[in-house]
């Protein structure tokens, strides 16, 4: 790893560790909030698993299967350590955040929520942390409440307070908004929920786990879901972390192989944690890949990760704000992770994204899977640039050049 080449400014210079970026010098990837690029160590870990340990875990008596099982379990332990989970059996592997949240909604939700109960989400939540709860409410007859936001895109804590009462069974919110980058005050929210209700607290960690230190055991929440592919890991692996007592009480989410203990003709008993929630052949290779990703992040240090992103975001904010007609959404940069959501005059974000593509700049344009938020911002879409460890000032230069190109094409500056 080549972390410290630019140590004087404290900036990370790890682009060379990412083959896709290293092979495309003209590419400026600013869409890591959607998915991150993958470092060589992760790609090597995947290949190494398939070349040296590939067999079906938990199945065979032969030593290769035992090795696959060990790799899978070691990956769980390593990722649990990274996310501050002492009891690694409480980390259930899933396909990603979406599946983790659906698991809680289906399993805990259907068993514990009934007519007259209430479920609270926020207007900034990603559809993955909004729709599962909306559907749960419709199925059970519970009331679905949406906590409002402040004008600058933070959770309105007064609105949250007003939504909480003795009937609240679930409060779900995102640690960090994917569309705006808002870092939500998790501790304050948890205190408020605990004071006013007996609700469980479910946190969407898709945008926090990749970017700053997270220690589940000290967060005081009940469930935390995350995605591996946003934190340098492979696609198709992520996790749900929960409290042991609750996970043990909950019915299975899916049924099948691996998650059973004894299958009788008329009934079945369940395996212990974490297997109870991992039906079918586990995604062992990707778990190993994700373990390599967190090892890589740990070697950098999560404090440096957020420091690097924030420094880039501040620079980008300053330079973009100076552009006439450009509007940045969300709270001040100090309250955001490395996300910059913006619009410019009447240039539609899709046109902006296409023109930026011509400069090699990849940004997201659209509703960011947060239509309730877009309605409140009263825009159909925004353009979003998001930063990660491999980005640098050159990426910001290209972003600014592309935006100016769009201004030229749309006639905001003399050609």
């Amino acid at each position, binding site marked *: 790893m080549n972390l410290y080449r630019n140590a004087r400014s404290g900036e990370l210079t790890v682009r060379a560790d990412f083959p896709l970026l290293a092979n495309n010098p003209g*590419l400026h990837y600013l869409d890591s909030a959607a998915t991150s690029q993958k470092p060589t160590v992760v790609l090597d870990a995947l290949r190494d698993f398939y070349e040296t340990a590939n067999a079906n875990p938990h199945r065979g008596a032969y030593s290769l299967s035992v090795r696959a099982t060990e790799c899978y379990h070691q990956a769980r332990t390593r990722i649990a350590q990274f996310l501050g989970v002492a009891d690694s059996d409480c980390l259930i592997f899933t396909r990603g955040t979406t599946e983790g949240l659906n698991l809680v909604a289906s399993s805990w939700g259907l068993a514990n929520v009934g007519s007259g109960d209430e479920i609270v989400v926020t207007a900034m939540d990603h559809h993955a942390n909004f729709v599962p709860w909306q559907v749960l409410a419709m199925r059970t007859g519970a009331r679905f409440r949406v906590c409002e936001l402040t004008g600058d895109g933070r959770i309105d804590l007064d609105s949250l307070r007003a939504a909480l009462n003795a009937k609240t069974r679930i409060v779900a919110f995102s640690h960090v908004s994917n569309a705006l980058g808002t870092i939500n005050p998790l501790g304050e929210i948890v205190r408020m929920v605990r004071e006013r209700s007996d609700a469980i607290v479910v946190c969407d960690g898709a945008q926090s786990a990749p970017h700053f230190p997270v220690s589940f055991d000290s967060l005081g929440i009940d469930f935390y879901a995350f995605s591996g592919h946003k934190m340098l890991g492979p696609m198709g692996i992520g996790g749900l972390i929960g409290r042991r007592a609750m996970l043990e009480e909950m019915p299975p989410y899916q049924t099948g192989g691996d998650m059973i203990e004894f299958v009788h003709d008329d009934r079945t008993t369940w395996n212990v944690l974490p297997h109870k929630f991992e039906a079918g052949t586990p995604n062992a290779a990707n778990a190993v890949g994700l373990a390599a990703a967190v090892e890589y992040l740990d070697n950098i240090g999560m404090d440096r990760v957020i420091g690097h992103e924030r420094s880039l975001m501040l620079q980008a904010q300053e330079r973009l704000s100076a552009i006439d007609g450009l509007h940045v959404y969300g709270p001040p940069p100090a309250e955001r992770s490395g996300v910059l959501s913006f619009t410019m005059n009447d240039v539609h974000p899709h046109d902006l994204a296409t023109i930026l593509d*011509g400069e090699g700049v990849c940004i997201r344009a659209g509703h960011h899977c947060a239509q309730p938020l877009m309605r409140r911002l009263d825009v159909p879409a925004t353009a979003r640039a998001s930063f990660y460890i491999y980005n640098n000032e050159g990426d910001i230069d290209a972003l600014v050049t592309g935006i100016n190109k769009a201004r030229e094409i749309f006639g905001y500056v003399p050609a």
Partner: protein
Amino acid sequence: MSLPRSSAEISALYQEMILDHYRRPRNKGVLENADASVEMKNPLCGDEIALQLQFDGNEIKDLKFSGRGCSISQASASMMTQLLKGKSKEEIGAIRTQFRDLMLGVPSAEDESRLGSLRALSGVARFPARVKCALLAWNALETALADSE
């Protein structure tokens, strides 16, 4: 695939004709006494269009659109309404097919004089992610025509 895309392709996409229709859309508004009316949204990008048609026998006597979206979707809607006014359903059927060919990158469609100013959208074919923008108004048209049958 070459990364990134060349900026020449971008210039070919954003022709002056498209920007002109985006800035000054023709036939934008609401039609009184419409015979067919369709609202359509592209859930992927949030673009939306409302299209209203008024028939005179077999012909489109008048049509208007409203909505919001990117330059490609708005220009396509504007140019479409301009071209289709006064056309018979048979003529419209042929134009629809030709416009879809243009979006698929069929070379002969670029020379099709019946498409008129819509040929300015030929560059869209090289941007698969944007073809759906150009087709939004045409999908609304198809639904409106089917509803009016």
